[in-house]
C-alpha cells in the first residue's frame, strides 16, 4: 500500500547523477526522463505533494499524475531503489492493511508489499555485524513473536510446566534470523551491500562477486546460524537447562536453507 502521506526517499546507496539514477550497490545507473527526474529530485517529499507538483508542472490531470507517480514509485520500490517512509502508527497501518485485504479477498489477491532497503556497512566485521542486526531486528522480532505464539498453542495442550518453551523457541527464531543475515554480510566484507525487506522476503543485495565468493556468501548465512544454534544446544546440555538447549533448535533449522527450497541452497547447489 502507498498512501499520499508516505514520504518518497531514495534508498541508501542510490543517488541522482546527471539525469541518471545510480545504485552504488549494484554498480549500475539508469537514464531518467524529465518526469522521472522531477519526481526523484523531490526525494523526502510526501507522495501526495509530488502528485500535485507533477500535475502542475506537466499539465496533467490529478488522476493522470497520481497514476504516473504511483506506477513509477511501485516500479522503483520493487527494485529496492526507493523507500517509502510512513508517518502513521503501526497499528493504524495494520488496520488499513486488514481493511484492504478484506476488500481484495474476493479476487484472491493480497495487498502489494512495500520494499524497504536498509544500509549496511561492510568495511569491518564489527560494523557488518552491528549494521545488519540493526537492519533486521524489527523483522526478526515479529517472526520470533509469531513462532512463540504458535508453540504456545502446543504448550497449552501439554501443560504449564512447559511455559518457558514458547519463549525459548521465539528467542531462537529471532536470534537465528539475525545471525543468518549478519553472517552473509560479514562474508561480504568490503563489498557494497544492503539488506532488503520485501513482504515475507528478507535478502542481502550486493555487488557482483566472483563465483567462489558467491558460494561462500551463500553458505555463510545458514552455516553461521547452525553453528550458533549448536552452541546454544551444547550450552543447554552442559548447564542442564533444556530451555536453553531448545533455543538452539530453530537456529539449527536454518540448515534447511542449504537445500534447493531456499535461495542460498540453490546457489550452493550450483543452480
Amino acid at each position, binding site marked *: 500500500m502507498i498512501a499520499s502521506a508516505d514520504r518518497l526517499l531514495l534508498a541508501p546507496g542510490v543517488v541522482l547523477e546527471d539525469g541518471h539514477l545510480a545504485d552504488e550497490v549494484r554498480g549500475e545507473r539508469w537514464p531518467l526522463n524529465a518526469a522521472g527526474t522531477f519526481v526523484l529530485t523531490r526525494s523526502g517529499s510526501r507522495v501526495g505533494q509530488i502528485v500535485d507538483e507533477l500535475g502542475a508542472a506537466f499539465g496533467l490531470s490529478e488522476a493522470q499524475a497520481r497514476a504516473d507517480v504511483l506506477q513509477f514509485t511501485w516500479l522503483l520500490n520493487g527494485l529496492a531503489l526507493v523507500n517509502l517512509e510512513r508517518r502513521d502508527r503501526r497499528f493504524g497501518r495494520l488496520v488499513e492493511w486488514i481493511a484492504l485485504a478484506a476488500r481484495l479477498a474476493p479476487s484472491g489477491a493480497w495487498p502489494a508489499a512495500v520494499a524497504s532497503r536498509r544500509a549496511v556497512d561492510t568495511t569491518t566485521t564489527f560494523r557488518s555485524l552491528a549494521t545488519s542486526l540493526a537492519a533486521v531486528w524489527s523483522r526478526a522480532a515479529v517472526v520470533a513473536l509469531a513462532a512463540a505464539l504458535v508453540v504456545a498453542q502446543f504448550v497449552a495442550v501439554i501443560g504449564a510446566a512447559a511455559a518457558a518453551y514458547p519463549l525459548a523457541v521465539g528467542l531462537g527464531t529471532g536470534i537465528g534470523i539475525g545471525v543468518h543475515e549478519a553472517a552473509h554480510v560479514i562474508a561480504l566484507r568490503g563489498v557494497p551491500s544492503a539488506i532488503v525487506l520485501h513482504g515475507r522476503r528478507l535478502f542481502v543485495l550486493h555487488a557482483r562477486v566472483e563465483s567462489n565468493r558467491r558460494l561462500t556468501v551463500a553458505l555463510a548465512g*545458514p552455516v553461521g546460524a547452525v553453528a550458533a544454534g549448536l552452541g546454544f*544446544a551444547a550450552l543447554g*546440555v552442559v548447564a542442564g537447562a*533444556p530451555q536453553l538447549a531448545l533455543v538452539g533448535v530453530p537456529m*539449527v533449522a536454518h540448515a534447511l536453507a*542449504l537445500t534447493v527450497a531456499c535461495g542460498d541452497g540453490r546457489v*550452493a*547447489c*550450483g543452480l
Partner: protein
Amino acid sequence: MRSLRAFVLGAVALGLLAYVAAAVVAFAAQADGRALDVSLGPLVFVAVVPNGSTTSATFGGGLALVALVGGAANLAAAALIRRRRPPGDRLD
C-alpha cells in the same frame, strides 16, 4: 559433482536438524525423568528409558534414514529445477 553436492547438502541439512531436535527432546525428557519412544514400527528415531537413578538415551537408525531421504529429495528437486530451465539458461 553438482549432484553429489545437492545430495550432501540435503542430507546434512535434514540429518543435522533431525539429530539436534531429537537430542534436545531426549534431553528435556531425561531432565523431567520421563520415558520417551519416537519410532515408526521397527524404525527407532529416539528413545529415552529411565533405569532407576540413571537414564539411557538411544538415537536410532531412523535419524540416518531422515538424512538419506533429505539428500535424495534435495537431489531430485535440484534435478527437476535444472530440467525445467530454458535450454539457453542451463549452466551444465
